[in-house]
Structure formats: C-alpha cells, structure tokens
C-alpha cells in the first residue's frame, strides 16, 4: 500500500509535465493539422537553455525557466514562419516529412553544439527528500508539479477567457469559417505553434534539473507526447491533459509492478492498442478518423 502511494505521487509529478507536452502537441494538431515531429526537440531545447542560462551564464534559476520557455516559443514561431507558412496548402504527409527534417536538424545541432555528454543542471532545491509518512518526494519534483499545474491553468485561462484564445478555438473548430469571420488565421497559426513549442520547452526546462540533459532526450519524449495525445484523442485538449497524467501513472505503476525494463514500452504498446481498438482516443466521443 505504501509502495502504491509512492507510485501515485511519482506518477502525478511525471504526469504533470507529460500533460504540458501533450497539450502543446494536440493544440498544434487541432488548430493547424500539423503532426509536429519537432515537439521532442523543443523539449530538449528548453532543457539545454536552462542548462546554458543557469550553469554557463549564472542567471537566477526561476528567471532561467521563464527565459527558456520564451526562447522555446520564439524558436517555435520561427519554425512556423519559415517552414509551415509556405506549406499551408500542402498535404499532411509533406508537412510531416518537413517536420521530420526539421527535427533531424535540431537534434543534431544540439548534439554538435553541446556534445554527447549528459549535463547536470543545478537547482536551488535541497537534495534531501521530503518525507511525509510512508512517502518521500524531492522538493524539486513538487516544485515541477506545481509549476506544471500553474501553466496548465494559465493555458486554460488564455484559451477560455481571452480574445486570442477565442480566435484560436474558432480556428480549431473550423479554420475556413474562422477566416470568414475575420480571424487572421495565419497569425493564429504562428501563435499556436509558438505557444505549443513554449509549453514543450517549459516541460523540458522543468525536467532538465530533475533528470540529466542530453541531446537524444527529445527522441523518446517526442514519441511519448504522441502516446499522450493519442490516448486523449488527437486534437482533444482536455483529453491530452488526462492522457498526460494517465501515461505518468501507467509508466510508474507498470514500471513498479510489471517490469522496470519495459517501463518506456508501455506507452507505445498502449498507443497501438488504442489505435487498433478505439482510434478516436479513450476520452473522446466517437467520430471518424479514417
């Protein structure tokens, strides 16, 4: 029982960052119909920016997190303007190939620039775990969960309460109709990609100090983001948040009770099963996806 509680806590912490990743990816797909293969690389980018700002430039940790997320958003906007805007009329497969090319460039640029050795990001939190009854948690992880939840809430407020959010939701539902209503879809796309990328970079910046920062870290995470998004249904925002926490628990409990080695495989097995049985996702209403 104690062990189960511990897994629950760890799964929640992991799930918070997974939800951030999933929301960004599903938002981009929903608004722009783009399968974003650079998402994992933006995550790695965020982690490297925190490393560079904190370890190399000696900037305050919290300020560095903010800057890393903003730099991620800026990189996302650049990708959108440079690569996606010219391809707005192209089919989904061409766009996927371009995004794979971009991911290849980003990942290897990271490898080239930073070297293959994993980096450690120092954080201002104590290295000793906080013990509450049978559960022990690193203070850093609690901070990560809190920030992730705050970002999720902020994102929801942005989408639900602001003019920009309304424009985004309109484009999400029907881009053509939104354009006819005077929404400048081009800028909505840029903003969407920037926000999605910023969330991915924020997730990387948050987890960078928890784990190590390495150039291939985006690979697996990029694929996991797909798992999260598929779990909740591609283009389904609440679904992505639920999917993020679900994957966190699945990995944590699966790793704890079934097999540590196959921990990372659970998500992928699950995607294949979900897509084969309920391709519209677990939480979405039935719709055609073929």
């Amino acid at each position, binding site marked *: 029982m104690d062990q189960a509680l511990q897994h629950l806590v760890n799964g929640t912490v992991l799930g918070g960052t997974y939800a951030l990743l999933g929301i960004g990816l599903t938002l981009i*797909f929903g608004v722009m119909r783009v*399968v974003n293969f650079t998402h994992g690389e933006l995550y790695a980018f965020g982690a490297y920016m925190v490393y560079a700002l904190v370890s190399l430039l000696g900037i305050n940790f919290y300020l560095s997190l903010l800057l890393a997320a903003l730099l991620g958003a800026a990189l996302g906007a650049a990708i959108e303007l440079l*690569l996606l805007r*010219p*391809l707005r009329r*192209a089919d*989904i*497969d*061409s766009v*996927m*190939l*371009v995004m*794979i*090319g*971009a*991911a*290849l*460039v980003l*990942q*290897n*640029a990271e*490898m*080239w620039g930073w070297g293959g050795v994993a980096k450690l990001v120092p954080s201002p939190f104590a290295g000793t775990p906080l013990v509450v009854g049978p559960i022990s948690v690193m203070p850093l992880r609690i901070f990560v969960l809190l920030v992730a939840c705050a970002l999720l809430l902020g994102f929801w407020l942005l989408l639900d309460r602001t003019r920009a959010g309304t424009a985004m939701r309109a484009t999400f539902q029907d881009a053509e109709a939104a354009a006819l209503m005077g929404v400048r879809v081009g800028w909505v796309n840029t903003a969407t990609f920037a926000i999605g990328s910023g969330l991915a970079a924020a997730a990387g910046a948050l987890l960078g100090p928890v784990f190590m920062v390495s150039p291939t870290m985006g*690979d697996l995470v990029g*694929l996991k983001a*797909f*798992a999260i998004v*598929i779990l909740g249904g*591609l283009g389904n925002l609440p679904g992505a948040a639920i999917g993020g926490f679900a994957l966190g628990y699945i990995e944590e409990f699966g790793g704890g009770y079934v*097999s540590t*080695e*196959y921990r*990372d*495989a659970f998500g*992928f*097995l699950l*995607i*294949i099963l979900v*897509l*084969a049985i309920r*391709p519209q996702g677990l939480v979405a209403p039935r719709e055609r*996806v*073929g």
Partner: protein
Amino acid sequence: MSAVPGWCFVAAMAALPLVLPDLYLLSVLTSAGIFIIGAISLNLLLGYTGQLSLGHAAFFGLGAYASALASLGFDIGIGFGLRLTLPPQPVWIGFLAAIAVAGGFGWLLGRLAFRVRGAYFVIITICFAQVLRMVALNWVELTQGPMALIGLSPFSLWLPGQGVVELYAKNQTYWLVLGVAVLCFLVVRQIVHSRVGRALVALRENETLARSVGIRVTHYLVIATVVSAGIAGAAGSLFAHNVRIVDPDVFLFIYTVTMVIMVITGGKGTLWGPVVGGLIFGLLPDLLRGAAPPEAQWIAYGVAMILLVMFLPRGIVPAIAALMPARRPGRGATASPVSQEAP
C-alpha cells in the same frame, strides 16, 4: 525508361569489381545496395499505396534479428519450464527466416494499422518500431540486449558443383547484394504492373472512389505491406551478415528516415526513384566522411529533406523524365502510373 538502359546499368554495376577492384568502394556500395533494397521495399508502401509508413526500420530490424538468431541458434525459456531451442542453421535458412518473420509482422501491422489513416497510421507505425526496439533491448536471453549479437557468419551460397561456399570476399558479398537488389526490383515491378499494383494506385489516388468500384482496399494494402516487409526483412538479413553484428539500434527511427529520404529524393511512386535516391544518399556520407562530423551529415539530410519536399516534391526521376523529350511514354519512370492506365 525501357528495359535496355536498366539492364545496362545492372551489367555496369556487376562489372565494377572487375574493372575497379577497390575494396573500400565495394564495401560502401554494398551497404548502399542494402539500403537501396530497403528503399525499394518502402517505395511500394510510400509511393504506390501513398501510406506514409514510418516504421520501416521495424521490418529491417526484424529481418536482421531473425537471420542472426537462426544462424547463431538460441535456447530460451518460454515459461512453464519449457525451453525453445534452435541449433545454428545455415545462413540461407536465416535469410528465408528473415523474409518470413518480417513478412509475418508486416501482416500483423497491416491488419492493425490500416484501420486508420493519415496521422494515426504514421504514429502507429512509428510506435511499432519503437516497441520492437524496447523488446530487442530488454529480452536479453534471446537478443543479448545492448551487448548485441556478435560473431555472425558471413553469407554462404550453394553453388552448383562446389556445394555450399562461404562468401568471405568483399566482391562476392557485393554481387550477392546486387543480385538480391535486382530480384527485389523485379518483384516490385511485377507487382506494380499487376492487378494488385493497379488497385494500390487506384486507392492512392482516390480511396473512396476505389472502394466504391469494389476494390477491397484493406486486402490490397495488407498484401503490399507483407511484400514490402518481406523485402525489408531480406535487406535486414543482408545487413546483419554483412556487418556481422546486430544490436537494438537497427530499429532506430533514423534508419527509417534514411530510407524515406532515399525514396522521396529519387521520386516516390517510380521504380527507379529508390535506386537513384539510394545511390545518392548511400554514397554521399562516405564521400563527405572526414570533411564533416556525422552530426553535420544528419543536419544535411534534414535540410535536404525540407528543401526537396518544398521545391522538388516529386523527386529527381520524374523531374528528369519531364526534362527529356517524350520519345515514348516511360514505363515506370512516370510519377503516376494512373496516367498510363487511363486513356
């Protein structure tokens, strides 16, 4: 392109080791040839059915592991105290096993993945390769995990009058790969020009229409996937016994990406596209070696992919075919065989 230039090209490639017995060049061409076989198989899915399958490294890796395990033999527990044992087999049996195993998984993936299309299909195929990589990493009793399967024997071939001969020499392996590549090319050409091929192209161009005239879409897609997977498995087997070591990295996404780049560079949906693209991207890295680190090579691949999709989306072969004056309607060199079939 009529058959004559094609056979001239094959003859020239076959004569190369005799004219230019440079071992380094031969080994580079051999590994390029193996990836060309992979690209030819991918093209059947990517080019002719229009399904962006990004898990092709799965079949390549399955072939490599099946072939390696058959030739090394294995002895594993399968639960309930039972053991599954296979004594080491000759390499050609491993080669056939590679085709069978990869083809079987192709059938499985086809049945599962073709329930969905577009982005969903792409993601399912990527995950498929990823799961297999995890299994290869973690099922240490069978695959040795990250320690890799080492000490594979080189290819052996039964030759009339000489019995089974091991192909140690570089030029022998080269000819073997060339032979398999030509065979695979012919198989794919045969399929493309058959009833199956026409059905595939019909559903690529308009799936709803194809369905409405009674083409059993999933049936044909699964056939294409099985054939494609089987050929990729053959390429994997060649790869395993050429480098003589197999590790879980054969399932890496980057191998799929390499094959995808080869196909789209040359021209997807053209028979010669994968060959042209494969020669370019098979030889380029080795020509650039020393001039730039491997990261720069991958960056160049990524940039090439972006530029090609943006500025030459149909690939090199159709572009050249369009430049050449239309002497005869080109067989296989046209981008869309539909234009030939339709009056």
